[in-house]
């Protein structure tokens, strides 16, 4: 009772009620508390309803994809649609896998997504460190240029880049698919912010411990920015793993084609859209990403909750 009283008096009612007979006073207080609690529960319910809606928006298409991937072709067409296939057709996965050289696509996808990631790490970590820790002539201007590149739409530059790479004879090569993404302005920005939060004393302690700048980056900065770095790696990996446009532009034969192109080709195979096989192919496409996410989700959540470095 005491606690309730105190809470009410904070809201300014206390002083007015101090003059009322005590019986009426406590009654009003109780009603007020009850009202507060009801409002709180109602707000919470609305909150959860919103979250649930959000989950459904993202989860339903995914569930639909999974369901379709296990149906027979006629089953995909029936109306009203059914969620649970009568007898799951695992053959769809084998069919999808066999419509083209999928192992080859798969290897290409890994080489390209990993190649991009490695190059990006090699470029963004030193760049972010320099932008976060050094004041050199033109550093603000240079960082401005990096930021501006974030605002240039890809559609604007894909033609010149294509022509350039074609002149270098890089069409249909892995390198041609990797090089345009060798650095990431988004990554530099994200990591710079994380590096800026590391206290100066830590870097100074490192200098006094005779650590080179490189050692400071590797042993002090990067471990502290790990959640941010893992998040970036995941974003980059997913984006380039799923990338359809650039591999489509850059490849005219199977040499460097990636999984998304392969999956898209399933549709063309038999003239009719074989949705079940297509969805099975899509699941093959997202499976590796789900695995990666499963292993890094703790880091990612940390990156968002703590905003990088504590």
């Amino acid at each position, binding site marked *: 009772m005491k606690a309730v009283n105190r809470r009410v008096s904070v809201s300014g009612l206390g002083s007015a009620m101090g003059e009322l007979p005590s019986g009426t006073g406590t009654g009003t207080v109780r009603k007020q508390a009850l009202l507060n609690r009801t409002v709180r529960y109602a707000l919470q319910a609305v909150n959860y309803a919103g979250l649930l809606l959000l989950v459904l928006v993202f989860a339903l298409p995914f569930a639909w994809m999974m369901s379709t991937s296990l149906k027979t072709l006629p089953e995909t067409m029936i109306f009203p649609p059914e969620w649970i296939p009568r007898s799951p057709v695992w053959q769809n996965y084998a069919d999808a896998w066999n419509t083209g050289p999928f192992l080859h696509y798969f290897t290409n996808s890994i080489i390209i997504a990993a190649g991009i990631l490695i190059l990006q790490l090699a470029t963004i970590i030193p760049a972010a460190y320099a932008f976060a820790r050094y004041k050199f002539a033109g550093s603000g201007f240079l960082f401005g240029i990096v930021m501006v590149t974030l605002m240039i739409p890809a559609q604007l530059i894909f033609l010149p880049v294509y022509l350039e790479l074609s002149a270098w004879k890089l069409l249909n090569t892995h390198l041609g698919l990797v090089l345009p993404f060798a650095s990431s302005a988004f990554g530099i920005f994200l990591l710079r912010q994380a590096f800026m939060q590391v*206290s100066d*004393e*830590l870097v100074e*302690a490192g200098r*006094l*411990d*005779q650590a080179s700048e490189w*050692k400071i980056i590797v042993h*002090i900065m990067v471990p502290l920015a790990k959640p941010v770095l893992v998040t970036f790696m995941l974003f980059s990996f997913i984006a380039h793993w799923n990338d359809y446009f650039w591999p489509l532009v850059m490849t005219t034969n199977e040499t460097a084609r990636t999984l998304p192109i392969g999956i898209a080709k399933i549709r063309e195979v038999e003239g009719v859209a074989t949705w079940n096989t297509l969805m099975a192919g899509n699941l093959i496409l997202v499976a590796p990403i789900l695995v990666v996410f499963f292993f890094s989700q703790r880091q990612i959540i940390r990156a968002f909750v703590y905003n990088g470095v504590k």
Partner: protein
Amino acid sequence: MAKIELKHISKKFKDETIIQDLNLTIKDGSFTVLVGPSGCGKSTTLRMIAGLEKASGGEIWIGGECVNDTAPGLRDVAMVFQNYALYPTMSVRGNIEFGLKNRGVAKSEREALVNDISEIVGLKPHLDKKPQSLSGGQRQRVALARAMVKKPKVFILDEPLSNLDAKLRNQMRTELIQLHRRLGTTFVYVTHDQVEAMSMGDEIVVMNGGVIQQAESPLKLYHDPANLFTAQFIGTPAMNMMNIRDVRGLGLTAGEQVGFVGFRPEQAHIQEAGMIGDGYKLEGEIITRESLGAENIYQIQSRTGIFFVKTFLEPLVEDAQVTVVVPYDQLYYFAPNGERLRGISARAAGGNVT
């Protein structure tokens, strides 16, 4: 072990001059404390010795070597930071041996060194923990161990105790003094706390506004301050200071040069009825009494302003109106510009004390 010399050091941040023409010699093996109010340039001086800040002018010599262009890691100095600056992602062991690794010390030797040091500072059971799981005192020890393990010529400590609670601070203070004795290395210590400075340093450098006010042993500093600033900075409560215009009944030789007259709270006596004391007399009303058991501190409102009197092992004075007597030889004289004036003697003038 090394002597440190600062020759004509200046430091500017953009257009602002923090330190100008600073000259200081820190003796080999001494425990030198730089003390002063915040913004007095003591930390900047320290960071210039460590090499974390570049001097705008002048030379810094460590152990007979000019280190102006030597990188911090190669100056053979170790630093303990105020917030410890432990590497959060490394274990205690990793923190201690990071410097050794960077120097290319072999693994077996590293292990032996880390073991020895952790034994000394009592961190043996915590070697594989992360700093986050240690208490403040333990973190402090890790920071010390990290510095000690490199066997540096100079230890630099930047307010290392200010993040600890009072009890732990006293304990670490004693431990640091013992550590200095054992290692015999030059210690340079920065603090804004004059109690810390007095209790730890064998040489104290009082700084204000980027200028060294006085560099002396603690007792010399206390008994023989060179100027008004030092006199008021050292001692708790600070030295009482009166403008000469407010002083009545004091006959001074060369009195015309004097701007201020001061006395230490612990040198003044509260005169009891019937007691005859010789010295400068002040009358006033006791406003507050603080008793710490062994010592009592009185805040007294007199005609010239508020001053303090400190007594030891005496019963608390209950009277409201008191007369305070300061022996003539315990009066300090300062010129209007704050310089200490020596060789002035005083006697009662006219006898009418007001």
